[in-house]
Protein backbone atom coordinates (compact mmCIF):
# COMPACT_ATOMS: atom_id res chain seq x y z
CA UNK A 1 0.00 0.00 0.00
CA UNK A 2 2.79 2.38 0.78
CA UNK A 3 4.99 1.31 -2.15
CA UNK A 4 5.86 4.15 -4.45
CA UNK A 5 4.37 4.21 -7.90
CA UNK A 6 6.99 2.74 -10.19
CA UNK A 7 6.95 5.57 -12.66
CA UNK A 8 5.32 8.38 -10.80
CA UNK A 9 6.92 11.64 -9.95
CA UNK A 10 7.34 12.08 -6.30
CA UNK A 11 5.97 15.45 -5.39
CA UNK A 12 7.48 17.34 -2.51
CA UNK A 13 4.25 17.16 -0.62
CA UNK A 14 3.91 13.42 -1.05
CA UNK A 15 7.53 12.88 -0.10
CA UNK A 16 7.00 14.79 3.14
CA UNK A 17 3.85 12.85 3.91
CA UNK A 18 5.66 9.57 3.37
CA UNK A 19 8.56 10.65 5.52
CA UNK A 20 6.20 11.63 8.28
CA UNK A 21 4.41 8.28 8.08
CA UNK A 22 7.72 6.44 8.22
CA UNK A 23 8.94 8.48 11.16
CA UNK A 24 5.78 7.68 13.07
CA UNK A 25 5.52 4.08 12.00
CA UNK A 26 9.08 2.91 12.57
CA UNK A 27 9.37 3.50 16.32
CA UNK A 28 5.79 2.37 16.83
CA UNK A 29 6.62 -0.88 15.10
CA UNK A 30 9.79 -1.30 17.14
CA UNK A 31 7.85 -0.64 20.33
CA UNK A 32 5.17 -3.11 19.40
CA UNK A 33 7.75 -5.79 18.71
CA UNK A 34 9.64 -5.08 21.93
CA UNK A 35 6.53 -4.72 24.11
CA UNK A 36 7.08 -7.02 27.06
CA UNK A 37 4.21 -9.35 27.90
CA UNK A 38 3.33 -9.68 31.57
CA UNK A 39 0.75 -12.22 32.71
CA UNK A 40 -0.76 -11.96 36.19
CA UNK A 41 -2.56 -15.01 37.58
CA UNK A 42 -5.16 -14.15 40.21
CA UNK A 43 -7.18 -10.96 40.63
CA UNK A 44 -7.26 -10.61 44.40
CA UNK A 45 -5.49 -8.00 46.52
CA UNK A 46 -2.08 -9.15 45.24
CA UNK A 47 -2.75 -9.81 41.56
CA UNK A 48 -5.04 -6.85 40.90
CA UNK A 49 -2.56 -4.48 42.58
CA UNK A 50 0.31 -5.90 40.52
CA UNK A 51 -1.63 -5.58 37.25
CA UNK A 52 -2.48 -1.94 37.96
CA UNK A 53 0.99 -0.82 39.02
CA UNK A 54 2.78 -2.67 36.21
CA UNK A 55 0.82 -0.45 33.80
CA UNK A 56 1.29 2.67 35.96
CA UNK A 57 5.04 2.15 36.33
CA UNK A 58 5.57 1.28 32.66
CA UNK A 59 2.71 2.00 30.25
CA UNK A 60 4.78 0.22 27.60
CA UNK A 61 4.08 -3.18 29.18
CA UNK A 62 1.27 -5.40 27.91
CA UNK A 63 -0.46 -6.79 31.00
CA UNK A 64 -2.97 -9.65 31.01
CA UNK A 65 -4.80 -10.55 34.21
CA UNK A 66 -6.22 -14.07 34.47
CA UNK A 67 -9.01 -14.41 37.02
CA UNK A 68 -11.88 -16.91 36.91
CA UNK A 69 -14.46 -14.74 38.70
CA UNK A 70 -16.07 -11.68 37.13
CA UNK A 71 -16.59 -10.26 40.61
CA UNK A 72 -14.05 -10.64 43.37
CA UNK A 73 -15.36 -11.29 46.90
CA UNK A 74 -13.01 -9.86 49.53
CA UNK A 75 -12.09 -11.66 52.72
CA UNK A 76 -11.75 -8.39 54.63
CA UNK A 77 -15.17 -7.18 55.82
CA UNK A 78 -16.63 -10.68 55.34
CA UNK A 79 -17.08 -11.31 59.07
CA UNK A 80 -19.33 -8.24 59.22
CA UNK A 81 -21.42 -9.78 56.44
CA UNK A 82 -21.57 -13.08 58.36
CA UNK A 83 -22.88 -11.28 61.41
CA UNK A 84 -25.54 -9.56 59.31
CA UNK A 85 -23.98 -6.13 59.85
CA UNK A 86 -23.15 -5.44 56.19
CA UNK A 87 -24.83 -6.53 52.94
CA UNK A 88 -22.82 -9.14 51.01
CA UNK A 89 -22.81 -6.82 47.98
CA UNK A 90 -20.32 -4.59 49.85
CA UNK A 91 -17.63 -7.26 49.34
CA UNK A 92 -17.92 -7.35 45.54
CA UNK A 93 -15.12 -5.79 43.48
CA UNK A 94 -15.20 -5.31 39.71
CA UNK A 95 -12.40 -5.46 37.14
CA UNK A 96 -13.87 -2.74 34.91
CA UNK A 97 -11.46 0.01 36.02
CA UNK A 98 -8.38 -2.17 35.55
CA UNK A 99 -9.50 -2.83 31.99
CA UNK A 100 -10.82 0.56 30.97
CA UNK A 101 -8.57 2.99 32.80
CA UNK A 102 -5.35 0.99 32.96
CA UNK A 103 -5.53 -1.01 29.76
CA UNK A 104 -5.11 -4.35 31.50
CA UNK A 105 -6.51 -7.22 29.44
CA UNK A 106 -8.73 -9.10 31.90
CA UNK A 107 -9.31 -12.74 30.93
CA UNK A 108 -11.94 -14.59 32.95
CA UNK A 109 -10.48 -18.06 32.90
CA UNK A 110 -8.42 -20.38 35.11
CA UNK A 111 -4.68 -20.90 34.67
CA UNK A 112 -4.06 -24.66 34.74
CA UNK A 113 -0.41 -25.03 33.72
CA UNK A 114 2.82 -23.03 33.43
CA UNK A 115 5.48 -24.04 30.91
CA UNK A 116 8.52 -22.36 32.43
CA UNK A 117 10.89 -23.25 29.59
CA UNK A 118 8.63 -21.90 26.85
CA UNK A 119 7.27 -19.10 29.10
CA UNK A 120 3.65 -19.94 28.47
CA UNK A 121 0.56 -20.16 30.65
CA UNK A 122 -2.20 -22.55 29.63
CA UNK A 123 -5.78 -21.67 30.52
CA UNK A 124 -8.65 -24.09 31.18
CA UNK A 125 -10.56 -22.57 28.25
CA UNK A 126 -7.78 -23.66 25.88
CA UNK A 127 -6.02 -20.33 25.33
CA UNK A 128 -2.26 -20.10 25.81
CA UNK A 129 -0.58 -16.86 26.94
CA UNK A 130 3.08 -16.03 26.31
CA UNK A 131 4.94 -14.13 29.00
CA UNK A 132 8.23 -12.39 29.54
CA UNK A 133 7.45 -12.14 33.24
CA UNK A 134 4.73 -13.91 35.16
CA UNK A 135 3.12 -12.86 38.45
CA UNK A 136 1.40 -15.68 40.35
CA UNK A 137 -1.01 -14.51 43.04
CA UNK A 138 -3.34 -17.49 43.50
CA UNK A 139 -4.15 -17.10 47.18
CA UNK A 140 -4.78 -20.22 49.22
CA UNK A 141 -6.00 -23.73 48.67
CA UNK A 142 -7.55 -25.85 51.43
CA UNK A 143 -5.74 -29.00 52.54
CA UNK A 144 -8.84 -31.11 52.09
CA UNK A 145 -7.08 -34.25 53.37
CA UNK A 146 -5.97 -32.73 56.69
CA UNK A 147 -9.18 -33.35 58.66
CA UNK A 148 -10.76 -36.82 58.47
CA UNK A 149 -14.15 -36.80 56.80
CA UNK A 150 -13.87 -33.20 55.57
CA UNK A 151 -14.23 -32.54 51.83
CA UNK A 152 -15.64 -30.01 49.41
CA UNK A 153 -18.96 -31.86 49.66
CA UNK A 154 -18.96 -31.75 53.47
CA UNK A 155 -18.16 -28.02 53.26
CA UNK A 156 -21.77 -27.66 52.07
CA UNK A 157 -22.83 -28.80 55.57
CA UNK A 158 -19.91 -27.50 57.64
CA UNK A 159 -18.73 -24.47 55.61
CA UNK A 160 -15.22 -23.05 55.74
CA UNK A 161 -16.52 -19.64 54.61
CA UNK A 162 -12.88 -18.64 54.12
CA UNK A 163 -13.01 -17.98 50.36
CA UNK A 164 -15.79 -17.12 47.93
CA UNK A 165 -19.26 -15.63 48.16
CA UNK A 166 -21.21 -18.93 48.20
CA UNK A 167 -19.49 -20.35 51.30
CA UNK A 168 -19.89 -17.08 53.14
CA UNK A 169 -23.57 -16.91 52.33
CA UNK A 170 -24.08 -20.51 53.46
CA UNK A 171 -22.56 -19.88 56.90
CA UNK A 172 -24.44 -16.57 57.21
CA UNK A 173 -27.76 -18.33 56.65
CA UNK A 174 -26.85 -21.13 59.08
CA UNK A 175 -26.00 -18.60 61.81
CA UNK A 176 -29.19 -16.70 61.18
CA UNK A 177 -31.26 -19.91 61.48
CA UNK A 178 -29.47 -21.16 64.61
CA UNK A 179 -31.82 -21.31 67.63
CA UNK A 180 -31.22 -19.31 70.80
CA UNK A 181 -29.23 -21.52 73.13
CA UNK A 182 -27.47 -23.14 70.18
CA UNK A 183 -23.73 -23.72 69.85
CA UNK A 184 -21.60 -22.23 67.04
CA UNK A 185 -18.30 -24.10 66.76
CA UNK A 186 -15.30 -22.69 64.85
CA UNK A 187 -12.35 -24.96 64.08
CA UNK A 188 -9.30 -22.65 63.71
CA UNK A 189 -6.33 -23.84 61.65
CA UNK A 190 -2.64 -24.15 62.49
CA UNK A 191 -0.29 -21.35 61.37
CA UNK A 192 0.33 -20.25 58.64
CA UNK A 193 -3.05 -19.47 57.11
CA UNK A 194 -4.88 -16.56 55.49
CA UNK A 195 -5.78 -13.73 57.88
CA UNK A 196 -4.31 -14.74 61.29
CA UNK A 197 -6.85 -12.81 63.42
CA UNK A 198 -9.77 -13.83 61.17
CA UNK A 199 -11.21 -16.77 63.18
CA UNK A 200 -11.21 -14.66 66.35
CA UNK A 201 -12.81 -11.66 64.68
CA UNK A 202 -15.42 -14.07 63.35
CA UNK A 203 -16.16 -15.37 66.86
CA UNK A 204 -16.33 -11.78 68.16
CA UNK A 205 -18.81 -10.50 65.58
CA UNK A 206 -20.94 -13.65 65.85
CA UNK A 207 -21.08 -12.99 69.61
CA UNK A 208 -22.12 -9.41 68.90
CA UNK A 209 -24.97 -10.60 66.68
CA UNK A 210 -26.01 -13.34 69.13
CA UNK A 211 -26.02 -10.91 72.05
CA UNK A 212 -28.83 -9.01 70.37
CA UNK A 213 -30.85 -11.88 68.86
CA UNK A 214 -29.96 -15.09 70.75
CA UNK A 215 -28.43 -14.20 74.12
CA UNK A 216 -28.25 -17.82 75.31
CA UNK A 217 -26.12 -18.92 72.33
CA UNK A 218 -22.57 -20.12 72.84
CA UNK A 219 -19.44 -19.94 70.69
CA UNK A 220 -16.69 -22.55 70.94
CA UNK A 221 -13.35 -22.07 69.16
CA UNK A 222 -11.41 -25.30 68.81
CA UNK A 223 -7.87 -24.30 67.94
CA UNK A 224 -5.03 -26.26 66.34
CA UNK A 225 -2.51 -23.92 68.00
CA UNK A 226 -1.81 -22.57 71.47
CA UNK A 227 -1.08 -18.91 70.70
CA UNK A 228 -2.97 -16.72 68.28
CA UNK A 229 -2.76 -13.26 66.74
CA UNK A 230 -3.58 -10.35 69.09
CA UNK A 231 -4.51 -12.92 71.76
CA UNK A 232 -4.44 -10.62 74.78
CA UNK A 233 -6.47 -7.93 73.01
CA UNK A 234 -9.10 -10.43 71.91
CA UNK A 235 -9.36 -12.08 75.34
CA UNK A 236 -9.68 -8.71 77.10
CA UNK A 237 -12.38 -7.66 74.65
CA UNK A 238 -14.34 -10.91 74.88
CA UNK A 239 -14.42 -10.65 78.66
CA UNK A 240 -15.53 -7.02 78.59
CA UNK A 241 -18.08 -7.32 75.77
CA UNK A 242 -19.46 -10.85 75.85
CA UNK A 243 -18.87 -12.32 79.32
CA UNK A 244 -18.55 -16.07 78.94
CA UNK A 245 -20.20 -16.42 75.54
CA UNK A 246 -16.93 -17.29 73.74
CA UNK A 247 -14.95 -20.28 74.90
CA UNK A 248 -11.63 -21.24 73.29
CA UNK A 249 -9.95 -24.61 73.55
CA UNK A 250 -6.28 -24.38 72.56
CA UNK A 251 -4.05 -27.13 71.16
CA UNK A 252 -2.67 -28.15 74.57
CA UNK A 253 -6.22 -28.58 75.89
CA UNK A 254 -7.03 -30.96 73.03
CA UNK A 255 -8.40 -28.26 70.77
CA UNK A 256 -7.25 -29.65 67.42
CA UNK A 257 -10.07 -31.07 65.30
CA UNK A 258 -8.92 -34.22 63.48
CA UNK A 259 -12.25 -35.60 62.25
CA UNK A 260 -15.71 -34.36 61.33
CA UNK A 261 -18.99 -36.31 61.39
CA UNK A 262 -21.45 -34.25 59.37
CA UNK A 263 -24.38 -36.67 59.90
CA UNK A 264 -24.08 -36.16 63.68
CA UNK A 265 -23.02 -32.46 63.46
CA UNK A 266 -20.00 -33.40 65.53
CA UNK A 267 -16.27 -32.79 65.40
CA UNK A 268 -13.71 -35.05 67.04
CA UNK A 269 -10.51 -33.83 68.70
CA UNK A 270 -7.03 -35.32 68.52
CA UNK A 271 -7.59 -37.33 71.73
CA UNK A 272 -11.02 -38.54 70.68
CA UNK A 273 -13.42 -36.17 72.37
CA UNK A 274 -16.58 -35.50 70.37
CA UNK A 275 -18.05 -31.96 70.32
CA UNK A 276 -21.57 -31.46 69.02
CA UNK A 277 -22.76 -28.10 67.73
CA UNK A 278 -25.65 -26.53 65.82
CA UNK A 279 -23.47 -24.67 63.34
CA UNK A 280 -19.94 -25.87 62.54
CA UNK A 281 -17.39 -23.72 60.71
CA UNK A 282 -14.31 -25.71 59.70
CA UNK A 283 -11.42 -23.45 58.66
CA UNK A 284 -9.03 -26.11 57.36
CA UNK A 285 -5.24 -26.06 57.23
CA UNK A 286 -4.08 -24.31 54.05
CA UNK A 287 -1.40 -24.18 51.35
CA UNK A 288 -0.62 -22.11 48.26
CA UNK A 289 -3.26 -21.97 45.52
CA UNK A 290 -3.55 -24.87 43.06
CA UNK A 291 -1.62 -23.36 40.14
CA UNK A 292 1.39 -22.74 42.41
CA UNK A 293 1.40 -26.42 43.38
CA UNK A 294 0.88 -27.61 39.80
CA UNK A 295 3.71 -25.42 38.48
CA UNK A 296 6.27 -26.57 41.04
CA UNK A 297 6.48 -23.19 42.76
CA UNK A 298 5.83 -24.68 46.23
CA UNK A 299 8.30 -26.36 48.56
CA UNK A 300 7.63 -29.10 51.16
CA UNK A 301 5.74 -26.61 53.33
CA UNK A 302 3.11 -26.18 50.62
CA UNK A 303 4.02 -22.49 50.17
CA UNK A 304 6.28 -20.72 47.64
CA UNK A 305 9.83 -19.65 48.50
CA UNK A 306 10.75 -16.28 46.94
CA UNK A 307 13.53 -13.71 46.81
CA UNK A 308 12.68 -11.30 49.65
CA UNK A 309 13.70 -8.29 47.51
CA UNK A 310 11.69 -9.02 44.36
CA UNK A 311 9.30 -11.90 45.16
CA UNK A 312 10.80 -13.79 42.22
CA UNK A 313 10.34 -17.52 42.75
CA UNK A 314 13.28 -19.45 44.16
CA UNK A 315 12.24 -22.31 41.88
CA UNK A 316 11.40 -20.75 38.50
CA UNK A 317 13.09 -17.65 37.02
CA UNK A 318 10.95 -14.78 35.65
CA UNK A 319 8.03 -15.91 37.81
CA UNK A 320 7.07 -13.80 40.84
CA UNK A 321 4.82 -15.25 43.55
CA UNK A 322 3.03 -12.74 45.78
CA UNK A 323 0.32 -12.69 48.41
CA UNK A 324 -0.81 -15.53 50.66
CA UNK A 325 0.87 -18.18 48.47
CA UNK A 326 4.37 -16.77 49.08
CA UNK A 327 6.73 -17.52 51.95
CA UNK A 328 7.25 -13.90 52.94
CA UNK A 329 9.23 -14.28 56.15
CA UNK A 330 7.55 -12.57 59.10
CA UNK A 331 4.77 -10.96 57.02
CA UNK A 332 1.28 -12.22 57.90
CA UNK A 333 -0.88 -13.65 55.13
CA UNK A 334 -3.42 -10.96 54.40
CA UNK A 335 -4.78 -8.39 52.00
CA UNK A 336 -2.50 -5.52 53.00
CA UNK A 337 0.63 -7.67 52.82
CA UNK A 338 -0.36 -8.87 49.34
CA UNK A 339 -0.96 -5.27 48.22
CA UNK A 340 2.46 -4.09 49.37
CA UNK A 341 4.23 -7.19 47.98
CA UNK A 342 2.54 -6.57 44.63
CA UNK A 343 3.99 -3.04 44.46
CA UNK A 344 7.48 -4.39 45.16
CA UNK A 345 7.12 -7.14 42.54
CA UNK A 346 5.69 -4.74 39.93
CA UNK A 347 8.58 -2.34 40.45
CA UNK A 348 11.12 -5.19 40.35
CA UNK A 349 9.68 -6.34 37.01
CA UNK A 350 9.55 -2.83 35.52
CA UNK A 351 13.15 -2.17 36.63
CA UNK A 352 14.48 -5.50 35.37
CA UNK A 353 12.86 -5.11 31.94
CA UNK A 354 14.24 -1.57 31.65
CA UNK A 355 17.73 -2.73 32.65
CA UNK A 356 17.69 -0.73 35.90
CA UNK A 357 19.32 -2.10 39.07
CA UNK A 358 16.96 -3.67 41.64
CA UNK A 359 15.32 -1.31 44.14
CA UNK A 360 15.62 -1.56 47.92
CA UNK A 361 12.17 -2.69 49.04
CA UNK A 362 10.07 -1.77 52.04
CA UNK A 363 6.91 -3.55 53.09
CA UNK A 364 4.00 -2.61 55.29
CA UNK A 365 1.23 -4.70 56.76
CA UNK A 366 -1.76 -3.73 58.83
CA UNK A 367 -4.48 -6.09 60.02
CA UNK A 368 -7.53 -4.50 61.57
CA UNK A 369 -9.97 -6.68 63.51
CA UNK A 370 -13.35 -5.79 64.92
CA UNK A 371 -14.50 -7.20 68.25
CA UNK A 372 -17.73 -5.22 67.84
CA UNK A 373 -18.76 -2.60 65.27
CA UNK A 374 -17.35 0.13 67.54
CA UNK A 375 -14.42 -1.84 68.98
CA UNK A 376 -11.39 -2.20 66.70
CA UNK A 377 -7.83 -3.41 67.21
CA UNK A 378 -4.87 -3.54 64.86
CA UNK A 379 -1.50 -5.13 64.36
CA UNK A 380 0.89 -3.22 62.13
CA UNK A 381 4.44 -3.77 61.00
CA UNK A 382 7.01 -2.20 58.69
CA UNK A 383 9.24 -4.83 57.08
CA UNK A 384 12.60 -4.91 55.30
CA UNK A 385 14.39 -7.52 53.24
CA UNK A 386 17.31 -8.71 55.37
CA UNK A 387 19.80 -11.56 55.18
CA UNK A 388 17.33 -13.52 57.33
CA UNK A 389 14.45 -12.85 54.92
CA UNK A 390 11.67 -10.33 55.37
CA UNK A 391 11.81 -9.06 58.95
CA UNK A 392 9.92 -6.41 60.91
CA UNK A 393 11.79 -3.19 61.72
CA UNK A 394 12.73 -3.33 65.42
CA UNK A 395 11.13 -0.64 67.55
CA UNK A 396 8.31 0.00 65.05
CA UNK A 397 4.91 -1.58 64.53
CA UNK A 398 3.13 -3.86 66.97
CA UNK A 399 -0.37 -4.26 68.31
CA UNK A 400 -2.85 -1.72 69.61
CA UNK A 401 -2.09 -0.86 73.23
CA UNK A 402 -3.53 -3.35 75.72
CA UNK A 403 -4.58 -0.39 77.89
CA UNK A 404 -6.79 1.92 75.86
CA UNK A 405 -10.18 3.49 76.45
CA UNK A 406 -13.40 3.02 74.51
CA UNK A 407 -12.72 6.09 72.35
CA UNK A 408 -9.44 4.59 71.12
CA UNK A 409 -11.13 1.27 70.23
CA UNK A 410 -13.93 3.15 68.47
CA UNK A 411 -11.38 5.18 66.51
CA UNK A 412 -9.66 1.99 65.34
CA UNK A 413 -13.03 0.53 64.34
CA UNK A 414 -13.69 3.62 62.21
CA UNK A 415 -10.26 3.31 60.64
CA UNK A 416 -10.87 -0.39 59.92
CA UNK A 417 -13.74 0.58 57.64
CA UNK A 418 -11.70 3.48 56.24
CA UNK A 419 -8.84 1.13 55.42
CA UNK A 420 -11.21 -1.16 53.52
CA UNK A 421 -12.63 1.77 51.57
CA UNK A 422 -9.16 3.07 50.69
CA UNK A 423 -7.47 -0.16 49.68
CA UNK A 424 -10.36 -1.36 47.52
CA UNK A 425 -10.51 2.10 45.93
CA UNK A 426 -6.77 1.96 45.25
CA UNK A 427 -6.94 -1.49 43.67
CA UNK A 428 -10.31 -1.79 41.92
CA UNK A 429 -11.74 1.71 41.49
CA UNK A 430 -8.90 4.08 40.62
Amino acid sequence: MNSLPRTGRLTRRRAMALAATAALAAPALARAQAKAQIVVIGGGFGGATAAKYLRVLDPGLAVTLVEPDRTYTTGPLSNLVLAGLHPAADLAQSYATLGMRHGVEVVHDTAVAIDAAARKVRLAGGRTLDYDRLVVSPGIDMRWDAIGGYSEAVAQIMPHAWTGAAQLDLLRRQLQAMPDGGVFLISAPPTPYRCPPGPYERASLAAYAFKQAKPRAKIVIMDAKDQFSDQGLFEDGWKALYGGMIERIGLSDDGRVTEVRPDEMTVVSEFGEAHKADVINIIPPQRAGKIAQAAGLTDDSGWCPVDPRTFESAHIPNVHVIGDAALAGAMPKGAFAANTQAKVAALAIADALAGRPPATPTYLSSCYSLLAPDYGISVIDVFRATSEGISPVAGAGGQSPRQADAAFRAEEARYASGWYASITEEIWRS
Partner: protein
Amino acid sequence: MFGHLPLKLSICGKMLMLAAIAALPASAAAAQSADPRLLALSCAGCHGPEGRSPGTIPSLHGQSETAIAEALRAFRADQRPSTVMGRIAKGYSDQEIDAVAHGMAVPSK
Protein backbone atom coordinates in the same frame (compact mmCIF):
# COMPACT_ATOMS: atom_id res chain seq x y z
CA MET B 1 -5.60 16.26 57.34
CA PHE B 2 -3.62 14.67 60.13
CA GLY B 3 -4.83 17.51 62.32
CA HIS B 4 -8.37 16.21 62.07
CA LEU B 5 -7.70 13.05 64.05
CA PRO B 6 -10.53 13.30 66.55
CA LEU B 7 -8.78 11.89 69.59
CA LYS B 8 -9.81 12.69 73.09
CA LEU B 9 -7.48 14.49 75.46
CA SER B 10 -7.58 11.58 77.88
CA ILE B 11 -6.00 9.39 75.23
CA CYS B 12 -3.36 11.99 74.51
CA GLY B 13 -2.36 11.91 78.14
CA LYS B 14 -2.08 8.16 78.18
CA MET B 15 -0.18 8.10 74.92
CA LEU B 16 2.34 10.63 76.21
CA MET B 17 2.86 8.55 79.34
CA LEU B 18 3.40 5.43 77.24
CA ALA B 19 5.79 7.38 75.04
CA ALA B 20 7.83 8.44 78.03
CA ILE B 21 8.07 4.85 79.30
CA ALA B 22 8.92 3.31 75.95
CA ALA B 23 11.30 5.93 74.59
CA LEU B 24 12.73 4.28 71.51
CA PRO B 25 15.59 5.39 69.31
CA ALA B 26 14.28 7.90 66.80
CA SER B 27 15.58 6.00 63.82
CA ALA B 28 15.15 2.25 64.02
CA ALA B 29 15.02 1.84 60.26
CA ALA B 30 17.37 -0.27 58.17
CA ALA B 31 20.69 1.17 57.09
CA GLN B 32 19.84 1.15 53.39
CA SER B 33 17.15 3.60 52.46
CA ALA B 34 14.09 2.15 50.73
CA ASP B 35 13.35 3.08 47.13
CA PRO B 36 11.56 6.47 46.96
CA ARG B 37 9.11 5.14 44.34
CA LEU B 38 7.94 2.45 46.77
CA LEU B 39 7.83 4.88 49.68
CA ALA B 40 5.59 7.17 47.64
CA LEU B 41 3.17 4.28 47.09
CA SER B 42 3.19 3.15 50.74
CA CYS B 43 0.43 5.47 51.97
CA ALA B 44 -2.24 4.57 49.41
CA GLY B 45 -3.35 1.30 51.06
CA CYS B 46 -4.83 3.30 53.97
CA HIS B 47 -4.99 6.92 52.80
CA GLY B 48 -6.35 6.11 49.34
CA PRO B 49 -4.92 6.48 45.84
CA GLU B 50 -2.75 9.63 45.68
CA GLY B 51 -3.76 10.24 49.26
CA ARG B 52 -7.43 10.81 48.36
CA SER B 53 -9.23 8.87 51.05
CA PRO B 54 -12.79 7.82 50.20
CA GLY B 55 -13.62 6.81 53.79
CA THR B 56 -12.86 7.62 57.40
CA ILE B 57 -9.07 7.78 57.20
CA PRO B 58 -7.71 11.32 56.78
CA SER B 59 -6.79 12.37 53.23
CA LEU B 60 -3.24 13.45 52.49
CA HIS B 61 -4.01 14.89 49.09
CA GLY B 62 -3.22 18.59 48.86
CA GLN B 63 -0.99 18.69 51.90
CA SER B 64 2.44 20.22 51.52
CA GLU B 65 5.62 18.20 51.61
CA THR B 66 6.69 20.02 54.76
CA ALA B 67 3.42 19.35 56.54
CA ILE B 68 3.55 15.62 55.79
CA ALA B 69 7.20 15.29 56.82
CA GLU B 70 6.62 17.25 60.04
CA ALA B 71 3.58 15.16 60.91
CA LEU B 72 5.47 11.90 60.34
CA ARG B 73 8.36 13.08 62.54
CA ALA B 74 5.95 14.12 65.28
CA PHE B 75 4.19 10.72 65.12
CA ARG B 76 7.55 8.95 65.23
CA ALA B 77 8.60 10.89 68.33
CA ASP B 78 5.21 10.22 70.02
CA GLN B 79 4.73 13.99 70.17
CA ARG B 80 1.49 13.65 68.30
CA PRO B 81 -1.17 11.17 69.41
CA SER B 82 -2.38 8.55 66.97
CA THR B 83 -3.84 5.08 66.74
CA VAL B 84 -1.41 3.57 64.23
CA MET B 85 0.76 6.35 62.76
CA GLY B 86 3.20 6.30 65.68
CA ARG B 87 3.75 2.57 65.20
CA ILE B 88 4.22 3.04 61.45
CA ALA B 89 6.42 6.16 61.45
CA LYS B 90 8.97 4.49 63.75
CA GLY B 91 9.80 2.17 60.86
CA TYR B 92 11.31 4.90 58.68
CA SER B 93 14.50 6.99 58.70
CA ASP B 94 14.56 10.79 58.23
CA GLN B 95 15.61 10.33 54.63
CA GLU B 96 12.70 7.95 54.03
CA ILE B 97 10.20 10.26 55.71
CA ASP B 98 11.34 13.02 53.37
CA ALA B 99 10.91 10.69 50.40
CA VAL B 100 7.39 9.71 51.52
CA ALA B 101 6.46 13.38 51.93
CA HIS B 102 7.96 14.30 48.58
CA GLY B 103 6.14 11.47 46.84
CA MET B 104 2.79 12.22 48.44
CA ALA B 105 2.74 16.00 48.25
CA VAL B 106 1.20 17.92 45.40
CA PRO B 107 4.08 19.63 43.57
CA SER B 108 4.15 23.22 44.79
CA LYS B 109 3.51 25.65 41.88
